[in-house]
Every structure is written in C-alpha cells, then in structure tokens.
C-alpha cells in the first residue's frame, strides 16, 4: 500500500520515499533535479540530481558596498571635528529637505534635495595638515514624478566671494586653472567668477569621480554629493556660493532638472555660517550653471557638459 504524504512538515527523504513508492504519486516540487529523476539515496542521504536551473558559470564578485557618509567623514577629518564639537549641525538645514516642483515639464514632478548632513565649523584638513573653517554637506537628490531618467549626474558650480560694504562681491579664485574656468581674465565673461567645481586636473564636469564623494543617480535611485569646502582658519570675510544641479543625460545631452543653492561665509570676526541661511531649490537651469558649463565646454581636452538650452 503506497504511503501518502501526511500534512505538516516533511523531510526530503520522506518526500522521496513517497515519490518512489508509486508512479502515480504527484511530482515532487523540491527542485529540478528531483523532477529529472536523477535523485538517489546513498547511505541514507538523499542526493538530488543536476539542477537545470543552475549554471556552471561563476557569478561575478558582488560590488562592494557604496561608501557612506561615515566613511567620508572619517577620511576627511570631519568625524573627529564633529566628535570634538568644533563642527556643529546647522539648525534648519541638517537633515532637512528642499524640494523643487515642476521638473521636466511635469507639473507635479519633484526633485528633492535632502541635506543628510549639514555642519559648520573647523576641521583638520589631512591633505594640507592645516585646520579649515567652513561647512560639510552630504546632499541626496531624489526624483519623483519627473518621468524616466536613466542617468542623473550632479554638476556643481561655485564662486568665491567677499563682502564690500555689506554687499556680496565675486572674488578672485586664486589659481590659474580656476581663473580660466571662471572667465576671471575676461571682462566680457558671462557669470564671471562662476566655474565648474573640479580639480585642476579634472576633464569631466561631473562632481562625483569616486564613490567616496557621492553617486550618480536615476529616477529610481537618488544621486549623492559629499563636499566640505572652506578656507583657512586665519581667513576673514571670505566665502563660497554653490549651485548643485541634477542633470539628466540621454544621448550625450544633459537636461538640467533642478538645482539647489547653498554655501558658507566667514565674517570679519572669523565666524562661519551657512550662506544663504537656508538652501533654495528650483527646477531648470540657472544662468551661472549654463554660463560656466559653456566656458567649460569651450576648453580643449574637456569632456563637454553638453547642456540642453
């Protein structure tokens, strides 16, 4: 008399016994190998047959986990400063989101810039062996209802500034390559002083060149940018303004979805503050970005930003 499966938990051996007891027994569902009929019992152990769903190809090594804010802050000396409280969270910015509505022509589409981290103060800059006064930010950029955007890259432009009689005045960026990118030696330069944020040696306009500093994004995954700009702690009446922009690339052309403005200022007394006090987010391209990108695209050897006008 054939045994029939009993309700409840069963072992594979029990299941195999049931399967082999009668050809009219229902097929097993424990794997392709069993269904192939190549399973066997050896020494009381059930060995399944080859599983057709498994390949012999060794899977590629999983990509390492992406760098997180903690890794960056440790490397840049920011963590030590936060621990010592020489860098403090910016109230109203740290952990807050700023949203631009109406992206890519979609009335309800939103680009949300979240300042996952926003600190101000002093930290020891390892690369120079000197303390720096400024800000530290980690910005996530998420799209919602903006349509399909497979490749979203962040382009950041900035200018150095100072204040004269209380008014913001663009300042000399200081070194030859920055002056060239800023149009500093051209009185007719548009948005003079504004430049694509990058190293002297950079030839691409995109901020993220290593996952320590952020990630590219899409309509499904947020982009990320980490930055800790500043000046020496001996500097006074200096600052930098930034426009961090999410640009959607397709077919080599970039459409600016939205930007957020942020920065810092160190006053005459040496006190650093977030500047403007709260970031502003808005859809579309800002003039400083398009002018700086046009300048960038005109320089030999650069990968063009190719922003759509």
């Amino acid at each position, binding site marked *: 008399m054939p045994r029939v499966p009993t309700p409840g938990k069963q072992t594979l051996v029990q299941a195999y016994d049931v399967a082999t007891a009668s050809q009219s027994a229902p097929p097993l569902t424990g794997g392709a190998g069993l269904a192939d009929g190549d399973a066997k019992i050896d020494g009381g152990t059930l060995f399944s047959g080859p599983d057709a769903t498994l390949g012999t190809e060794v899977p590629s090594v999983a990509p390492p986990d992406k*760098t997180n804010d903690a890794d960056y802050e440790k*490397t*840049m000396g920011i963590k030590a400063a936060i621990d010592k409280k020489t860098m403090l969270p910016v109230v109203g910015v740290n952990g807050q989101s700023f949203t631009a509505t109406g992206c890519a022509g979609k009335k309800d589409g939103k680009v949300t810039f979240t300042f996952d981290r926003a600190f101000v103060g002093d930290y020891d*800059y*390892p*690369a*120079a*062996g*000197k303390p*720096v006064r*400024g800000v530290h930010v980690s910005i996530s950029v998420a799209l919602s209802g903006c349509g399909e955007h497979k490749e979203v890259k962040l382009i950041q432009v900035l200018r150095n500034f100072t204040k004269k009689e209380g008014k913001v005045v663009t300042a000399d960026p*200081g*070194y030859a*390559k920055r002056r060239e990118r800023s149009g500093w030696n051209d009185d007719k330069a548009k948005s003079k002083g504004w430049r694509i944020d990058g*190293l*002297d*040696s950079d030839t691409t306009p995109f901020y993220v*060149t*290593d996952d*320590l*500093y952020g990630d590219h994004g899409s309509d499904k995954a947020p982009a990320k940018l980490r930055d*800790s*700009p*500043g*000046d*020496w702690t*001996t*500097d006074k009446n200096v600052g930098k303004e930034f426009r961090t922009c999410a640009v959607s690339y397709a077919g080599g052309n970039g459409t600016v979805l939205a930007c957020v403005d942020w920065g810092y200022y160190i006053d005459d007394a040496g006190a650093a503050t977030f500047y403007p006090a709260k970031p502003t987010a808005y859809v579309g391209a800002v003039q400083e970005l398009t002018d700086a990108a046009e300048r960038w695209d005109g320089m030999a050897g650069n990968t063009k930003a190719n922003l759509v006008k």
Partner: protein
Amino acid sequence: MKIARLVLGIVLGACASPSHKEPPVMNQSSETTSDDQLVAQLRKAVATSVIPETIEATVGRKALINTSTGYPLAGLRRVNMVPDPYHPGETLSLATARAVVYWARSVPGDDPHVVGVQVRTDGTASVFFGIVPPP
C-alpha cells in the same frame, strides 16, 4: 661601565622612533637646508627604490599623507593639488598612482607647499611637487 650604559641608552633612544621625529625649530636658513635635504632624499629614493610603507622612516620625517599606511588613495581624489610653478614638470597624477606619500615643505605662503613621491601601478616612481589650497 656607567659611561658605556649611558652611551648605549643614547644610541637606543635615538633609534627608537626615527619615523616620527619632527624637524626641530629652525631659522630660515636651516629650514631651507632641511627642505633641500628632504627633496634630495626623495630624489635619491626614487633613483634607487621606493618602498612607500617605509619611506617615512627612511627620510626620518612623518608624512602628511601616506596612502600605503592607511590613508585611502580615494581621499586624495578631490584634493586640488595645484602644480608648483617652480616645478611645473613634476606633478602628481592620481590616475596612474598606486601609492602616494607627501610631506609639507618649509616654503612661505598660506597654502602649504608639498613634495612627495608617487609609485605608479606599473611600478615606476617619481617625485612630485604641489600646492594645496583650501578645499
């Protein structure tokens, strides 16, 4: 006997931690000499063989950055190292670097001047100079 112990103590003390010995406070001329010595030591190291892990001990000075002893190479990827106008042909190329070690130089100016060695992925090495502005 006491003298022998004293001499032994001095010798052992001097050898205890040469890699972390800081340069003494110096006047301008000896600073220049010290800087010249550092550059000469690095050029000599490059001409023979550079071992990034031990080069700080070799030159007897603690480096600002040594990517072979814990500081990640990626940590330099957004450090804007401006070419030193006095050494325009000797610059850092991170794209080809396997290890980077550099020291602050005693050169006047707000922005630190640095000199270092880069060991490339193909095993070759060279001296580089640069200026590090604020981030």
